[in-house]
C-alpha cells in the first residue's frame, strides 16, 4: 500500500483538519467530526445535512457552504457515520425551520440516520429524511437492500441546497429532494480496485484485461466482471440501462453527470462524456446542463459512473443558483 498518509487511524481527522485550514472561510469542524457551514445556524432557514463514509471526497464535506449542504458527517473510510455525528450536525444547523437528512441507501447509513432522527425529534427538532437510491445496477426488490445511493446524491445536494438557501420551507425542500430522487438514475464501473487504508491491501484483485461493471462507491465488487472494452463500449454498457430504466425519452431535458471514481484522469472522463452526448442526441434527449469531474469517489479507484437527471424548470433554475463550497463554486 502506497498512500500519502501518516497513520491509518489518523487519516480522517487529519484530512478534516486540512479542510479546516484550507477552507476556514466556508466551514468549521465540530466534535464529533462534523463539517459545519461557517455561518450555521441560519435563523429561519431549513438545514440540509448529509453524511456517509469517508473516502468519497469531495462528497460530502466538500459540498458544505453557501447554497448546498449546511453540514456533513464523515464516518471512517467507507463506514457510515454514527448517530452522535448526525445529532450534533442537526443541532448545529437547526435555525428553527427543521432539518432535512439526505441519506444514501445503504443499510448502515439508514440505521444510523434513523437513530439520529429519533434522538433529534425527541429534542424537539423537526426532521425529514429522503433516501437517495439511484443505482440501476441493483434491482430494487425484496431480495436486495434496494438500489444504492450514488451519483444522484451530488445533484440532489446541490439542487436541494439551493432551494433551502432561497428560503423554501421544510415540506417544499423535502418534496423537491424526493422529486430529484424519482428522476435520477446512475450506473458505475471500475477498472481497478482500491485499498482501504486500515485494511492495507486492495479490496479485490482484477486482471489487466478485466473490468467490474455495476460497482457502487466502496471499492466493492460489482454485479459482474467482464472483459475490458473501449470507452465507447463501456459508456454504452452504463448509459443504456440508465436510459431504459426511468425511461428517458425523446424530448426530455437532462443534466448529464460523468463522474470519476478517484483514479481516472479528466481526459478519460471527457471521452466518456463525448459518447454520452452522442447517445443522448440519438435518443432525442437534450443535455441542458452537465457536470464532468470526480465528485463522488472510491479512494483511488479508476473508473467512472454516469448519472442522468430529468430536469424541470425549477430544478434547472436551482442547479444554476449560486453555490460556494470547496468542490463546487459558481455565481457566488
Amino acid at each position, binding site marked *: 500500500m502506497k498512500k500519502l498518509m501518516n497513520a491509518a487511524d489518523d487519516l480522517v481527522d487529519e484530512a478534516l483538519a486540512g479542510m479546516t485550514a484550507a477552507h476556514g472561510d466556508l466551514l468549521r469542524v465540530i466534535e464529533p467530526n462534523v463539517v459545519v457551514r461557517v455561518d450555521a445556524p441560519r435563523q429561519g432557514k431549513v438545514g440540509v445535512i448529509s453524511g456517509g463514509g469517508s473516502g468519497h471526497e469531495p462528497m460530502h464535506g466538500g459540498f458544505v457552504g453557501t447554497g448546498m449542504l449546511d453540514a456533513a458527517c464523515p464516518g471512517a473510510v*467507507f*463506514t457510515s457515520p*454514527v448517530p452522535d455525528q448526525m445529532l450534533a450536525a442537526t443541532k448545529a444547523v437547526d435555525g428553527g425551520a427543521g432539518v432535512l437528512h439526505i441519506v444514501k441507501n445503504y*443499510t448502515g447509513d439508514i*440505521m444510523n440516520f434513523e437513530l439520529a432522527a429519533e434522538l433529534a425529534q425527541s429534542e424537539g427538532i423537526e426532521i425529514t429524511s429522503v433516501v437517495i437510491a439511484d443505482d440501476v445496477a*441493483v434491482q430494487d426488490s425484496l431480495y436486495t437492500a434496494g438500489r444504492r445511493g450514488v451519483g444522484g446524491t451530488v445533484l440532489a445536494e446541490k439542487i436541494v441546497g439551493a432551494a433551502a438557501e432561497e428560503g423554501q420551507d421544510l415540506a417544499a425542500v423535502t418534496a423537491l429532494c424526493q422529486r430529484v430522487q424519482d428522476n435520477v438514475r446512475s450506473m458505475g464501473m471500475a477498472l481497478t480496485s482500491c485499498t482501504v487504508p486500515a485494511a492495507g491491501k486492495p479490496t479485490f484483485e482484477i486482471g489487466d484485461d478485466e473490468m467490474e461493471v455495476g460497482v457502487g462507491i*466502496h471499492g*466493492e465488487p460489482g454485479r459482474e466482471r467482464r472483459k475490458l472494452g473501449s470507452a465507447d463500449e463501456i459508456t454504452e454498457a452504463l448509459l443504456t440501462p440508465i436510459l431504459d430504466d426511468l425511461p428517458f425519452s425523446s424530448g426530455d431535458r437532462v443534466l448529464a453527470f460523468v463522474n470519476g471514481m478517484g483514479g481516472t484522469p479528466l481526459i478519460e472522463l471527457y471521452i466518456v462524456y463525448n459518447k454520452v452526448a452522442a447517445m443522448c442526441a440519438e435518443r432525442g434527449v437534450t443535455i441542458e446542463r452537465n457536470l464532468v469531474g470526480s465528485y463522488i469517489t472510491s479512494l483511488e479507484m479508476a473508473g467512472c459512473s454516469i448519472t442522468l437527471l430529468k430536469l424541470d424548470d425549477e430544478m434547472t433554475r436551482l442547479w444554476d443558483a449560486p453555490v460556494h463550497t470547496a468542490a463546487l463554486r459558481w455565481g457566488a
Partner: protein
Amino acid sequence: MSDFDAAALRRFVELFADRIHERRDELTQLDSAIGDADHGINMDRGFNAARGKLAELDGSDLGATAKAVGMTLISTVGGASGPLYGTLFLRLGTAFGDRTAVAAGELGQALRAALDGVRQRGKAELDDKTMVDAMSPAVDAYEATSGDGIGAALDAAATAAAGGRDRITPLVARKGRASYLGERAANHQDPGATSTTILFESLRDAVAAG
C-alpha cells in the same frame, strides 16, 4: 452453574473484544469478498471502546453495564454493525433491568429480546444471509437446553451459531452490502454471521471461566 452476573458480562465483553481483535483481519477479509472490507476494523474499534467504557464503570448492575456497552457501540462502530450490535446489548440491558444476576431462563429471555431487537433494527429474516442466521438458531438452542443450566445452554447456543453461519454460506444475500452482488455472494462465508458466532463462543467460554 451459578447465575449470570455483571462480572460474567464483563468477562464476556472483554473476551469477545480480545477475539475480535485477534481475528480482525479474518473478518475484514471475509467482508472484502462480499462487502466493503471494514467489518473487522469497525468491530475492533467499537469493542475496544466498549472495553474502555467497562473500565470506567464499577457497578455490579447487570442491566446498566449491558446498556453502557450498547451505547458505546452505537457511538463508535458506525456502518450497519454499530446499530445492530448496539441494539443487541441495549436490549440485553433492558431485559436485565436492575438485577445483579439472572438465572438460566431469564438469560434466555434476554437473548430472545436481543434477537428481536436486531431483527427489528435490520429488518432481516432467516436466510437473508446476515448475523440473524447465526443468532436465531443460537437463541433457539439456548431455550431448548436452558433447563440443563446456563453452561450447557450456552454450549448448545455456540454450536448452533456456528451451524447457522456455515449453513448460509452457499446462499445469495438478501440484505446488506452483499445483496448488491447477486449470485456472486453465493458460496462466501458471511462476515456478520461469523462475528456473531464468535460472540456466542465468547459468551460460552466467559461463563465457563467464571
